[in-house]
């Protein structure tokens, strides 16, 4: 099986501060991975490296078989990555749900003076249908509940038809029922669409749902297996 993410001795950070320290990991295509860790442990930085936003200081990085060692590679890999961010505070911009999902295709088929077309709109509708939020298409995003907003955020990421879906604290601020619904939805979509999924979270989301579980501490990844997996949230 091919590797969706291959990081070898990767160090990365901001300015002179190193956040990821000689990190090694191989994540197979189509797998479902959860990375846990406390705030500031480097989880979000890991996602920034994988989606090519943050250049690495040292080591070797390949994502979806594309090297991240140069800007062209990083730009190219972003076209195939969907990104689900932490739920935002109530947005203030006037935007319908379908418009906001369409924005998820930015950089893959349209940007700047190259405008979106009918096909982009169809992809946005398909993505909303997949997340069960098509009935919200004409609603103003400011009128959505937290759970609805996160479904729309997921649709925005799926609108890119991604091979790799990165999720940064996707269930933070959701109530327990909405958290559970959201994780069920992600798992169901992962099974049907066969993308590689990486979720980073500091929350005790259901570990049974992941193929592999990692803990991030001081810029390094540690895989949790067997007993460690089952005891992770009991501590």
């Amino acid at each position, binding site marked *: 099986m091919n590797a969706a993410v291959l990081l070898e001795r990767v160090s990365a950070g901001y300015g002179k501060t190193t956040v990821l320290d000689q990190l090694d990991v191989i994540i197979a295509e189509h797998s479902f991975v959860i990375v846990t860790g406390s705030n500031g442990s480097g989880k979000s930085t890991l*996602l*920034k490296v994988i*989606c*090519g*936003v943050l250049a690495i200081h040292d080591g070797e990085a390949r994502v979806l078989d594309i090297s991240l060692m140069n800007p062209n590679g990083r*730009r190219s890999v*972003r076209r195939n990555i969907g*990104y689900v*961010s*932490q739920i*935002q505070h109530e*947005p*203030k*911009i*006037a*935007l*319908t749900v379908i*418009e*906001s999902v369409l*924005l*998820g295709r*930015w*950089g893959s088929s*349209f*940007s*700047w*003076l190259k405008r*979106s077309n009918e096909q982009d709109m169809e992809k946005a509708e398909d993505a909303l249908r997949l997340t069960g939020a098509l009935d919200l298409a*004409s*609603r*103003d*995003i*400011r*009128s959505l509940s937290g759970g609805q907003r996160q479904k729309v955020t997921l649709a*925005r990421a799926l609108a890119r038809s991604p091979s790799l879906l*990165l999720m*940064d604290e996707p269930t933070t601020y959701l109530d327990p029922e909405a958290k559970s619904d959201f994780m069920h939805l992600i798992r169901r979509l992962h099974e049907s669409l066969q993308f590689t999924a990486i979720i980073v979270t500091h929350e005790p989301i259901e570990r049974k749902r992941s193929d592999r579980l990692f803990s991030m501490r001081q810029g390094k990844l540690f895989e949790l297996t067997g007993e460690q997996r089952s005891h992770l949230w009991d501590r």
Partner: protein
Amino acid sequence: MGSLIDAFSIPIIRHAFFGIVVAGSTLSLLGIIIVSLNLTAIRFTLMHTGLLGAAIGTAIGSQPTAGAFIMVLAASAIMAAITKKKNVSTSSASGLIMTASLAGAFIILAVAGVPAMQIFDIFAGNILMLTRIDLLFTIFLGLLIVTFFAIAYREIQLVLLDKELALNLGVPVDGMMTIIFIMVGIGVAGALRLVGALLVDAIILLPGIAALRISRRFLSALLLSSLFGFLSAACGFILAILLDLPVGASTAIVSAIIMAVVLLLPDTHR
């Protein structure tokens, strides 16, 4: 009606009308960005730095508006740079610059022995003193703003929706924010000349707030903001001519009436 026709037969009145209408229709687009990005405190800071610039201009025997313009531009560039620093919040920087500007203005006026009334123009604006160069500048500024929205239509939406997402998709968020700050700075500086520091909100902010309240789509918010800005400027100017009122104040009154009417309408996006 006769007095209105007589007034518009004077070239300077026609220039002034055209200038304020162009400004109202285009600067109001910036209001959508200011409200959506929660930059209302920053535009208030820029207005105060305008006062400092006017004080410096007056103290050295130059034009107060020229000083205000330069200072507002400098402050917007500084604010853009500060927002990139993770350890300084925008509101902290805003508070610091605003207080220092106000204090600086009063000190300069006191030391230079300039009567405070001399810089009253900066508060009230003086559209009837609009020169041909000012008018051309206003048109250029309007075109610049419209062009920015036309080129970066989706990119602006992404930045206003979620900066983190925009960054991860590859949008040059820092560059966009710098352009936005400079644009807001130039807009505030331009509006100072037209309606005065205290009434900048009338053509920049209130139309945007009103439009965002009754729009569900981004394009309709932009068009409505522009329409409200146009109506405020045009009706305000005509009212000022008919009733012999200060243009800035009557523009602000019309803008406030539009805002009040919109507030009374049902909140359609909820």
